C-alpha cells in the first residue's frame, strides 16, 4: 500500500497556514539596502539626458556602464538589455538603478529622463518585424478544399492577461566575501537566473548562486522576468557591497513585467456535409512585444495546438510572432495554447451551426482517436483520450438536456474539447537533458531537484513518487530547497513537466538507489556506509522522432485531454455574462496526489474564467494603464463559478506511476466553452475577454431557432 494516489498533507502546509513560510519580502538581512528601478515612460525613442534631481548622499546609483559582464538578460536570443543604454523599445524598460537603506528616501528620489521620441509600432498587424515564423503543413490544401461542401472562415482574438500571483516579484542579492554573488528570490527557474547572472556579472558558474525563497505563485510569470530582477539586485549589491532587496509593489509588477501574448488567429476550414473536416488553414499572430524573450517557443506551442484535437488530412498552420513597442509578452500558463485552442473551439461551434449540426456530434466525428495523426503527423497511441473526456463531460453536465431546455432563454451552455502536450516541445527535453539526484540521509532520503514549489505541490508530489518507488514512508523523504549550489539542473518549473518529466527521472533515481541499498532502509544504509547520491539524466520515451526544421513528428511525448462545459447567464440589462457552473473532465494519466491535482484543475479553470470574461489589460501608448488590482480584476469567490471536477485515468507508461502533465491544460478550455455558451444564448462573440461592451456589439447568431425570445434588448446592429 503506497502513498501515490492518496493525498497526504502537503510538505509545506504547516508553514503556509502558520504564517512561517519565508517569502522574499519576509527576509531582512543586516546592512541591507532597498533597490529601486527607474524605467522608461515612452514606448520608443532615444535617451538624451538623465538628471538626478535629489540629494544623492547615501545612494547607490548605477546604469549600464556599471555592468561588469554582458548587458543582456541571457535567454534565447540575448537581445534584451538588463539596463537600457540609449534606445528605448518599450514603456517601463529599466534604465537606472538606485539603492538606499531608507525606503522612503529611495521612493522620494526624483530621476528625470529626457528623450527624443520615435514612432512606436503598437499594432501587431502593422509590425513589419517578424521575430519567429513557424509553418506546419500536412496533406494538400487544394485537394482538401476541393472535397469540401462548406468552407467557413473566421478571425478570433484573445487579449493580454496579467498573472496576478498574489506575491509580487522580488529578489535579495548578497555579495559574497569570495567575490561571488548569491541571490534569493521568487522564481520558477533557478538555472535560468543562474545563467543570466553569469553573463551579466561576467562570473564563472561557481561564483553565482541562486536560492529559491518560497514563491507566492508563478503561473509562468516567474519564468523569465526574475532573471532581470535578480540582475538588478545583483548589480546594486556589487556596487554597494551590501545586500540589496528589490521587491516590486503591485503597480510596478503589473506595469513592468510580462503578460500573456495577445493573439489574432484566423481559420479557414473545409468540411463535408456529413461533418468531416477535410481542410484546416490556420494563421496565428502573436504580439511578442519589444524583445524576443520566450516568444518563439510560445508561438511553437500555440501553433502545434492550433488545429485542435481533431483529425484532418490537410492542414496548414502558419504562425508568426512579431515585434511591437510594448513590454515583452511572456510565459503564462498554457503558453500559446489557450490562444489557439480558443480560436479553433469557437470556430468548431460556428461550423456546427453552419452545418445545422449539433456541436457535440461534430466533435465526435472529428476527435482524434488512437491511430490518428495530429497536424504535425504525430501518430497517437492509446494515451489519446479525446472521445472519453468528451462523452463524460456531456454526460456529467447534462449538456444535451440543458442545450435543448435553455434554447431561446438568457441562459446558455457550451463546451470545448482540448488537449495539451506535456513537457518541452519537440527535442526540447533531450536538449535540456535534465538531471535529478537522490541522496541518503540519517532520516531517509533527500530529493535534489531544481523544480520549484510554486504552490502546485512539487515537494509533496515528488516525495510521493520517491517514497513508493523506494518503499519508504512518505515522511522519510525530504526535499532540498532549490539552490543552484546544491541541486542539479533539472530544468525549469514550466511546461507541465515537473511531474511527468522530472518525476520520472526521480523515479529512475529511486529504482537505482533501491538496488544499491541491498535490502537496507536508506537511513540504515546511511548509518553504515555514509551518504550515497544517485543522479539520473532525462531519457526520452522510445520511438520519439521530431524534425525541428519542418515541424514534423512527435511534438510532445504525450498529451493530456480535457473537455469543459460552461453554463452562462446573460444579464439582459448590463450585458454582463456570468458563468454559473463549470463541469470539467480531465485525463492526465493518473493523479499522483488527487487533492493537489484537483487544485491545479480548479485553479486553472478559474484563471480561464477570468481570461474569458473579466480580465482586461487596458493598453494606451504601449503601456498598461490599469496596473492596479482596483482596475484589473481577477475572479473573486463571487465571480468564480462552482467547478465540478472529474479526473479520469488513462495511465501513461512513460510517466511516473502513469502520470502526464496537468499544470497548464485547465487554462486552455474555459474561454472557448464560455464563449460557446454565450453563442448558445444567441450572441456571436469571437474574442476574449468577452466584456459587456463586446457582448452588446456582438451580432446575433444566425440560427433563428436559438435567438433570444426577448427582443427588446437585441443589439441595434
Amino acid at each position: 500500500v503506497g502513498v501515490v494516489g492518496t493525498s497526504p498533507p502537503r510538505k509545506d502546509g504547516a508553514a503556509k497556514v502558520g504564517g512561517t513560510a519565508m517569502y522574499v519580502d519576509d527576509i531582512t538581512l543586516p546592512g541591507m539596502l532597498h533597490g529601486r528601478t527607474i524605467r522608461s515612460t515612452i514606448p520608443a525613442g532615444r535617451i538624451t539626458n538623465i538628471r538626478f534631481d535629489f540629494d544623492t548622499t547615501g545612494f547607490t546609483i548605477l546604469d549600464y556602464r556599471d555592468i561588469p559582464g554582458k548587458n543582456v538578460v541571457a535567454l534565447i536570443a540575448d537581445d534584451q538589455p538588463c539596463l537600457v543604454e540609449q534606445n528605448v523599445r518599450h514603456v517601463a524598460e529599466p534604465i537606472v538603478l538606485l539603492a538606499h537603506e531608507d525606503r522612503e528616501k529611495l521612493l522620494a528620489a526624483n530621476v528625470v529622463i529626457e528623450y527624443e521620441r520615435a514612432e512606436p509600432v503598437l499594432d501587431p498587424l502593422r509590425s513589419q518585424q517578424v521575430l519567429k515564423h513557424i509553418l506546419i503543413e500536412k496533406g494538400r490544401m487544394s485537394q482538401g478544399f476541393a472535397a469540401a461542401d462548406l468552407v467557413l472562415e473566421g478571425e478570433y482574438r484573445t487579449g493580454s492577461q496579467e498573472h496576478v500571483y498574489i506575491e509580487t516579484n522580488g529578489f535579495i542579492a548578497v555579495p559574497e566575501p569570495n567575490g561571488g554573488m548569491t541571490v534569493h528570490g521568487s522564481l520558477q527557474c533557478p538555472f535560468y537566473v543562474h545563467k543570466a547572472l553569469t553573463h551579466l556579472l561576467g562570473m564563472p558558474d561557481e561564483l553565482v548562486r541562486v536560492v529559491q525563497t518560497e514563491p507566492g505563485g508563478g503561473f509562468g510569470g516567474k519564468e523569465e522576468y526574475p532573471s532581470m530582477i535578480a540582475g538588478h539586485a545583483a548589480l546594486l549589491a556589487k556596487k554597494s557591497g551590501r545586500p540589496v532587496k528589490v521587491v516590486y509593489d503591485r503597480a510596478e509588477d503589473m506595469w513592468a513585467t510580462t503578460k500573456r501574448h495577445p493573439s489574432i488567429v484566423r481559420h479557414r476550414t473545409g468540411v463535408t456535409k456529413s461533418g468531416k473536416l477535410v481542410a484546416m488553414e490556420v494563421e496565428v499572430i502573436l504580439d511578442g512585444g519589444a524583445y524576443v524573450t520566450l516568444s518563439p517557443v510560445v508561438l511553437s506551442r500555440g501553433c502545434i495546438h492550433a488545429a485542435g484535437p481533431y483529425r484532418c488530412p490537410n492542414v496548414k498552420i502558419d504562425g508568426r510572432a512579431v515585434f511591437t513597442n510594448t513590454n515583452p509578452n511572456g510565459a503564462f500558463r498554457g503558453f500559446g495554447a489557450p490562444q489557439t485552442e480558443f480560436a479553433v473551439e469557437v470556430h468548431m461551434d460556428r461550423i456546427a451551426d453552419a452545418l445545422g449540426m449539433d456541436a457535440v456530434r461534430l466533435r465526435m466525428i472529428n476527435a482524434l482517436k488512437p491511430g490518428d495523426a495530429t497536424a504535425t503527423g504525430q501518430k497517437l497511441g492509446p494515451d489519446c483520450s479525446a472521445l472519453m473526456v468528451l462523452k463524460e463531460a456531456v454526460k456529467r453536465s447534462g449538456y444535451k438536456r440543458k442545450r435543448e431546455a435553455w434554447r431561446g432563454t438568457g441562459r446558455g451552455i457550451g463546451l470545448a474539447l482540448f488537449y495539451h502536450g506535456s513537457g518541452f516541445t519537440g527535442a526540447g527535453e533531450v536538449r535540456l537533458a535534465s538531471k535529478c539526484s537522490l541522496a541518503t540521509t540519517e532520516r531517509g532520503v533527500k530529493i535534489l531537484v531544481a523544480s520549484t514549489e510554486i504552490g502546485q505541490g512539487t515537494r509533496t508530489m515528488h516525495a510521493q513518487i520517491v517514497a513508493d518507488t523506494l518503499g519508504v514512508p512518505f515522511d522519510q523523504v525530504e526535499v532540498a530547497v532549490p539552490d543552484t549550489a546544491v541541486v542539479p539542473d533539472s530544468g525549469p518549473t514550466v511546461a507541465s513537466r515537473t511531474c511527468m518529466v522530472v518525476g520520472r527521472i526521480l523515479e529512475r533515481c529511486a529504482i537505482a538507489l533501491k538496488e544499491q541499498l541491498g535490502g537496507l532502509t536508506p537511513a540504515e544504509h546511511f548509518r553504515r556506509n555514509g551518504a550515497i547520491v544517485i543522479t539520473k539524466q532525462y531519457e526520452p520515451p522510445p520511438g520519439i522522432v521530431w524534425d525541428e526544421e519542418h515541424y514534423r513528428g512527435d511534438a510532445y511525448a504525450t498529451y493530456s485531454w480535457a473537455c469543459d462545459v460552461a453554463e452562462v447567464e446573460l444579464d439582459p440589462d448590463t450585458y454582463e455574462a456570468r458563468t454559473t457552473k463549470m463541469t470539467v473532465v480531465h485525463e492526465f494519466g493518473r493523479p499522483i496526489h488527487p487533492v493537489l491535482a484537483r487544485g491545479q484543475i480548479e485553479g486553472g479553470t478559474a484563471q480561464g474564467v477570468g481570461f474569458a470574461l473579466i480580465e482586461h489589460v487596458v493598453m494606451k501608448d504601449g503601456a498598461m494603464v490599469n496596473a492596479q488590482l482596483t482596475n484589473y480584476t481577477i475572479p473573486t469567490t463571487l465571480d468564480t463559478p462552482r467547478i465540478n471536477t472529474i479526473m479520469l485515468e488513462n495511465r501513461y507508461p512513460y510517466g511516473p506511476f502513469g502520470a502526464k502533465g496537468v499544470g497548464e491544460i485547465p487554462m486552455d478550455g474555459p474561454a472557448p466553452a464560455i464563449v460557446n455558451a454565450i453563442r448558445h444564448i444567441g450572441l456571436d462573440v469571437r474574442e476574449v475577454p468577452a466584456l459587456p461592451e463586446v457582448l452588446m456589439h456582438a451580432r446575433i447568431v444566425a440560427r433563428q431557432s436559438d435567438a433570444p425570445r426577448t427582443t427588446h434588448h437585441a443589439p441595434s446592429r
Partner: protein
Amino acid sequence: MIFTLNGKEVDVAAHPMKRLLDVLREECGLTGTKEGCGEGECGACTVLVDDEPVCACLVPFAQVHGADVMTIEGLAGDHPLQTAFVNEGGAQCGMCTPGMILAAAALGPKPSLEKVRTGLAGNLCRCTGYEAIYRSIRAAYENGKGVGEWESGSVGEEKPA
C-alpha cells in the same frame, strides 16, 4: 502605543500613520501577514481587529490603539481551519492563506456556502479557484452534522474513475 496583539498586551513605538501592515511586519516581526496589493483589493493582509477582518494595508497604526489585533501567528497552528487548509488543498502558494484563514475564522462556525462566498469575496486567491477553500472550511467544521446550508453533492463528490 498599547494594544493587544495575539492575546498579549504590547507597547509598540511607531509613527501613528504607519500602515498597520508595516508595523506588524517590521516593528513586531510578524511576517505572516502578507502584502499583495497595498490598496485593500486582495485581502492578503487581512488581520482581525476586535474580531472584524480588516486589510492591514489600509489601517493606520493609530487606529488600533487599545484594540485587540489577531494575526495568523495568533492561531495555535492546529486550529481546525489551519489543519483543514493543509489537508483539503485550501493552501497552495500560501500567500493569500493567512488572510484567507483569518477571514474564514471571522465567519464563525459552520457558515453557509453563501456566507462563505460573500464573506471571502474580498480575499483573492489566484491558485485554487476557491473550491478547495470551500472544502477546507467545510472540513474544519465537519466534526458534527449540519454544516449550514452547504449544497449537497456539489463539492468534492467525484472520485477518480
